[in-house]
């Protein structure tokens, strides 16, 4: 549905993106992640036909954006990062204008406007001036604008930035409702958002694709070892020694001891085998009492930090070489 091949864009000497490639299948929600200035917006602007790339090609709805931008643009809805709105228009007039520009007319247009006014919760403000609306409502108007012609592809650039927590939840719910029947690219640097709505992520860093894949698969790849956080009361040294004897344990770290003789350990396992029950047994064997045990999962934050910092190390290596 969406294909990006070897896309490169420089702003003068400044790197926007370099040699980016990825695909999004029909009906998929792709999270587009990266730190600020990584090239997320640049990629999206190229995809929407706003900006021509220096080299490489992009396809939206299987139409080459550079070759026939107008056809590609008819098939996509785009919410730019700064949510461009005409403040002097009413919500309805604005949606009417965008719908007309997207080639809708007559009852089809009326129905389209009615649909997005409903789905974006704009009934109460439809006849108000956009300039007088709150930021949350404006963001909804921006979304409504992108969806008014029910395009097969939606590209949303940081749809929740600058909103308060309640508004973020509203917008997220709205996006979740869109899942399934549309191909969606969502850029963000807010990670929980990705966890909630995206099927797959592309992480870009310094203008390149740093990682790509399903969230679970990415986490599994990055999770070199299996880590378990464990707390127990008892003699710390005895506990530590017993834990080390459990087969499959690579390393045991004593993180600290809190009041009430409770010790906290971090146990690193060698393989993928679940050794939690063995560890519990070891604790009792050392005559300790287990107070807490949990597996540490790599969160998207950890993943992101690892990828980003890994890239940096890699970059430094190349520089040194």
């Amino acid at each position: 549905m969406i294909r990006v091949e070897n896309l490169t864009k420089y702003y003068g000497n400044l790197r926007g993106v370099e040699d980016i490639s990825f695909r999004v299948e029909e009906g998929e929600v792709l999270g587009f992640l990266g730190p600020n200035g990584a090239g997320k917006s640049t990629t999206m602007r190229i995809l929407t036909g706003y900006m021509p790339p220096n080299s490489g090609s992009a396809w939206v709805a299987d139409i080459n954006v550079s070759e026939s931008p107008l056809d590609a643009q008819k098939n996509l809805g785009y919410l730019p990062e700064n949510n461009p709105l005409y403040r002097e228009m009413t919500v309805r007039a604005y949606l009417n204008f965008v719908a007309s520009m997207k080639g809708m007319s007559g009852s089809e247009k009326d129905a389209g406007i009615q649909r997005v006014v409903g789905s974006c919760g704009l009934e109460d403000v439809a006849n108000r001036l956009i300039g007088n609306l709150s930021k949350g409502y404006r963001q909804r108007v921006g979304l409504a604008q992108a969806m008014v012609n029910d395009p097969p592809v939606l590209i949303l650039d940081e749809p929740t930035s600058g909103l308060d927590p309640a508004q973020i939840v509203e917008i997220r719910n709205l996006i979740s409702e869109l899942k399934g029947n549309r191909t969606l690219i969502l850029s963000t640097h807010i990670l929980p958002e990705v966890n909630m709505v995206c099927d797959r992520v592309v992480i870009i860093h310094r203008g390149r694709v740093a990682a790509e894949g399903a969230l679970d698969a990415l986490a599994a790849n990055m999770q070199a070892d299996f880590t378990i956080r464990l707390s127990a009361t008892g003699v710390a040294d005895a506990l530590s020694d017993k834990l080390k004897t459990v087969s499959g344990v690579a390393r045991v770290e004593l993180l600290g001891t809190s009041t009430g003789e409770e010790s906290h350990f971090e146990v690193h396992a060698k393989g993928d085998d679940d050794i939690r029950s063995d560890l519990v047994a070891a604790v009792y064997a050392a005559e300790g009492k287990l107070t807490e045990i949990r597996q540490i999962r790599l969160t998207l934050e950890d993943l992101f930090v690892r990828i980003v910092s890994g890239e940096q190390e890699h970059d430094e290596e190349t520089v040194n070489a």
Partner: protein
Amino acid sequence: MHNTFFICRRELASFFFSPIAYVILAAWTVLMGFFYSGAFLSYATFSMQLARNPQAAAQYNITPTSAVLEPVFSSVTVILLFVAPLLSMRLFSEEKKQGTLELMLTLPLRNGQLFAGKYLSILFIYLIMLAITIVYPIILSAFVKVDWTIVSSAYLGTVLTGMAFLSVGLLASSWTSNQIVAAMIAFMILLATFLVEALAIAASEPLSSILRHLSLGVHLRNFIRGIIDTRDIIYLVNINLLCGFLVLRSLEYYRWRG
């Protein structure tokens, strides 16, 4: 074609939403009325003096059209020098500032349609402004015989000159995201075309003719005298084409730079 119409309609709605529309229209009406009544009254006095002295009257070749309407039409250029930048300054600047230009450039819309829509919207406003002035020759015709061919030629000239002025304003607007800067640039360019005429008087041939031909104001003068010269028409139309072309270049550049 449809898209051009939608852009034009949106621009007009937006224009009449802002107070600047009414300020411009009011100022225009007052100023034109001032110029007209001045010319009308001085002609009335002058013709009464000449009526008492038929020999002197024969020496002057004065018609009511030339005496009253010529100065009125000439003053259009002067007022337009201020009004054209004001009319056109917001068209691209505001969209750049608000970021809506990004929306425009990602909608299924050609750059040319965007330009045409915006251009037509201010042309439409300008035509409304000119339409108001039609009352002047009509009032005049109630008292004396008006040469309608000259009036038509003068209107053709003012429309064409106005179009050239507006396209210069539109071009300046496409260069910056600041409306004031856009208006100032347009004003400077238009002012320069007047100063060129002054230079032409001082310069020697052939530079003088070239400078004279470059001046926007000179071309209007022929139309006002009832002379429709293809050179004038071509010159004015060329300014529109040049500005249109440069606006499209400017939009392309904007896309590249992001």
